[in-house]
């Protein structure tokens, strides 16, 4: 078990390092001079000013030195420029926005909670609805409930979020006024307002994903119910509740845990469309804007963060799998 864990962690760290190199390379692949971008769209900088900026940013150094500086910034912090113009960037330093000089860490600190709120709330919705509908559907296969559930989830699973999201906005906000136009409020400021604003994205992303999860749960449960060990459990004289709850569910849930973990990791990196539809500035929207504006420090930070989420989710899922399935521990 320990060796298994260490192996997984080493692999995760190596992957992250590789991704940091690739992300850093993005910086150089972009066909524009960062110093020019920093000058902004309207004002024009003379060559002197550009050189000044380049030096301050360390852009005049060779690439590997710059990468070293970048990594050092993340782990111990760094200082841009020298003397009176020096600007301190404490760890985890991700640089400053080219556009408005705001520290990238501050931007992440502001937008990440938005994405976290959307994703965890929606995940609770889709796991709760998806799993229970899928399980009941499998246990009542062929009944009216099952048929309705299968039909609905087929529609849901094939509906794009921008369509469903706008539909929700039109029906619940613009036409009936049942809900106010969502406006993000940090949970620390006003939990009720926070939840009120989150209702729409939770329903939007949560419902659509519960369709996928209901289909997954139903298929997993049906497959498990036909397993020999379920027949054995019944042959022992166990009650239906024990057979389904203790024997079938435990086996059926394992692959779902895996997929849910990976989904969560992916969504935490940003839910661009959901954020855009409901007008939130989360990590996804921020990343998209930064990419459009060639604001490279933000692009690099968001890409790196998404990678961290996905890889962490991978490690957690592997560990969880090993805890659930004793067969994994040996191999």
């Amino acid at each position: 078990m320990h060796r298994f864990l260490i192996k997984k962690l080493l692999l995760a760290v190596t992957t992250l390092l590789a991704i940091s190199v690739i992300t850093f390379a993005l910086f150089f692949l972009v066909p524009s001079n960062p110093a020019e971008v920093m000058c902004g769209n309207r004002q024009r900088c003379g060559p002197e000013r550009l050189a000044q900026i380049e030096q301050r940013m360390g852009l005049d150094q060779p690439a590997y030195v710059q990468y070293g500086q970048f990594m050092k910034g993340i782990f111990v912090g760094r200082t841009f420029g020298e003397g009176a113009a020096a600007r301190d960037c404490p760890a985890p330093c991700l640089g400053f926005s080219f556009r408005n000089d705001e520290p990238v860490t501050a931007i992440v600190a502001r937008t990440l909670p938005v994405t976290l709120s959307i994703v965890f709330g929606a995940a609770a919705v889709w796991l709760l609805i998806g799993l229970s509908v899928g399980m009941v559907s499998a246990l009542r296969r062929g009944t009216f409930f099952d048929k309705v559930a299968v039909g609905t989830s087929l529609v849901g699973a094939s509906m794009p979020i921008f369509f469903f999201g706008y539909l929700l906005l039109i029906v619940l906000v613009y036409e009936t006024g049942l809900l106010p136009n969502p406006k993000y409020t940090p949970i620390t400021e006003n939990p009720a307002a926070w939840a009120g604003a989150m209702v729409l994205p939770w329903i939007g992303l949560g419902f659509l994903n519960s369709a996928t999860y209901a289909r997954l749960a139903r298929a997993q449960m049906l497959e498990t119910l036909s397993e020999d060990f379920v027949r054995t459990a019944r042959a022992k004289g166990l009650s239906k509740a024990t057979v389904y709850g203790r024997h079938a569910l435990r086996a059926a849930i394992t692959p779902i845990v895996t997929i849910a973990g990976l989904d969560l990791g992916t969504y935490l990196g940003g839910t661009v469309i959901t954020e855009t539809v409901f007008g939130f500035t989360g990590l996804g929207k921020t990343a998209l804007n930064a990419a459009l504006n060639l604001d490279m420090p933000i692009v690099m930070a968001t890409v790196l963060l998404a990678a961290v989420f996905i890889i962490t989710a991978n490690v957690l899922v592997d560990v969880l799998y090993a805890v659930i399935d004793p067969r994994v521990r040996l191999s």
Partner: protein
Amino acid sequence: MTAAVIPETPGAYTGAAPYLQVRDLSVRFATEDGVVRAVDGVSFAVERGRTLGIVGESGSGKSVTSLAILGLHDPKRTTIAGQILLGGRDIVGLDEESIRRLRGRDMAMIFQDPLSALHPYYTVGRQVAEAYRVHHPDASWREAHRRAVEMLDRVGIPQPARRANQHPHEFSGGMRQRAMIAMALVNNPELLIADEPTTALDVTVQAQILDLLADLQREFHSAIILITHDLGVVSQVADDVLVMYAGRAVEYGTAEQVLRRPQHPYTWGLLSSVPSLHGDPDADLIPIRGNPPSMIHPPPGCAFHPRCGYALLGSASTPGAAAGACEVDVPQLRQVQERGHTVACHLPEGKRVEIYRRDIAQAGVVR
């Protein structure tokens, strides 16, 4: 057509009614393609302390019969007719809760592939303990666990206390089947059904498991149904033998009668295709030609007639039997001269005995 003869238990047994009596059992499944008549009018009986071997090719209805006895078919898609008397009480159509109480306590089952039949995520000891606890609700998990270790020891698993805390994948195939047996016998059931318990095991382990079953039977005095398509296994352990073809019983008698003086052409075919029963190990195995029939649209008359080398077809005439009978009439199980031996075949008995002596026994196929 006369009604099916309901045979008594073959051979001489002592005591009152046999523990398990199956009478005219039919099991049908409604499927999208039509009604599957998986078991059709099968009757047999098993006394405590005796072993009935049920043989037949794949798809002949052996497993469906045993699952019907345990009441494990989905009532929504299965129609079961006939009687299954367990200790004199008919359990066909019994409500789920009543039959659940019987499962694992009065009757237990072990399956072909012990790896897939055991839950991969729970320890072996816990699974055995669970089987004990469900019928001893007052027992604590500790007591149940102690009992499980005892059973694992009894079925010959070395270091049972340590092994009880391991998972099924850490066991070898033979050890897993021993664990299954421990689980099935933990409540000392009166009836044990073993559905091809040794098919997934290699030959030496096979013999050990069969020995173990025979041993445990002497100790627990249970009635055993052993399902297999290996006549070698049957000859080793069975007291009585039921031969099934396409969901029907075609020959039934003591092991001695069915294996030494078989009268049904299908039984002859099975015997000819078993290496372990050959007098001469070099003799050619003769597999039965053709394939098992569809269970939705079985052939009319004797379901075996398209594959039978002795079928009475339209043109042929055999003294004492109607021409074409095999294609038209379903043969019923009938008592032959020897008591307790029944055969479902249109050929007259004298003819069957003659053919067996001339074509089958003489050819050195069967010892």
